[in-house]
């Protein structure tokens, strides 16, 4: 499943579904709202483009690392400390490919998928700065 959504997901169910024939390893990445003296976090996406980018990243990870299954669910809307922001579940025959595939996916998301975070505090809010000079991958 590749999705941008407000709802949380059942990670246990995703793990169960990721155990395709030949699976020897499942790696789960769960990015959560950190307690950086914030009250909430607000996430926003250019949804149509973000989903397309996530699908491309999942496809590339599958090709490069021989993954058997990929889920990427990025949440948007208002989230509180400790809530899931991003869940990546990958499976592969062996752990090196599962770890590498998962790492590839999160780094590519950070590099180029149009999603933004605003940390809400008692005094207002601040947009989390993206990496300067990056932002939406290479021109196409």
């Amino acid at each position, binding site marked *: 499943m590749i999705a941008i959504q407000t709802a949380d997901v059942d990670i246990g169910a995703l793990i169960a579904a990721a155990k395709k024939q030949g699976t020897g390893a499942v790696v789960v990445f769960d990015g959560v709202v950190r307690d950086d003296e914030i009250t909430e976090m607000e996430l926003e996406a250019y949804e149509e483009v973000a989903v397309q980018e996530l699908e491309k990243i999942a496809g590339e990870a599958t090709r490069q690392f021989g993954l058997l299954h990929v889920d990427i669910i*990025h949440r948007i809307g208002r989230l509180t400390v400790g809530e899931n922001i991003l869940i990546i579940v990958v499976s592969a025959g062996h752990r090196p490919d599962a770890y590498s595939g998962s790492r590839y996916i999160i780094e590519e998301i950070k590099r180029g998928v*149009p999603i933004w975070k605003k940390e809400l505090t008692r005094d207002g809010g601040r*947009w989390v700065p993206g990496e300067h000079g990056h*932002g939406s991958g290479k021109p196409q």
Partner: protein
Amino acid sequence: MTVKIRFFARFRELLGTDIVTEVAPGAMFSSLITTTARKNPAGYAAIFDEKGDFHEFVILMKNGKRIELTDAAKTPVVDGDEIAVFPPVAGG
């Protein structure tokens, strides 16, 4: 002809989003964004520098495809285009 401009994140807060606007045939990408951003000085300053050039961190898309800042002045918009303007991404 009609085009839609979508600002995101800080730019959206300052300028709004899903702005549907009438433009003259032959209008260029950068001039359309300039005209739209001028409606709010803080929004304009967030996207353009004092010389009127895009800040180098600004990202532009036309119909979901990236446009280089240096090409924006020579890229025409056409009827039905969706233009997106946003700061560096910070997902994950």
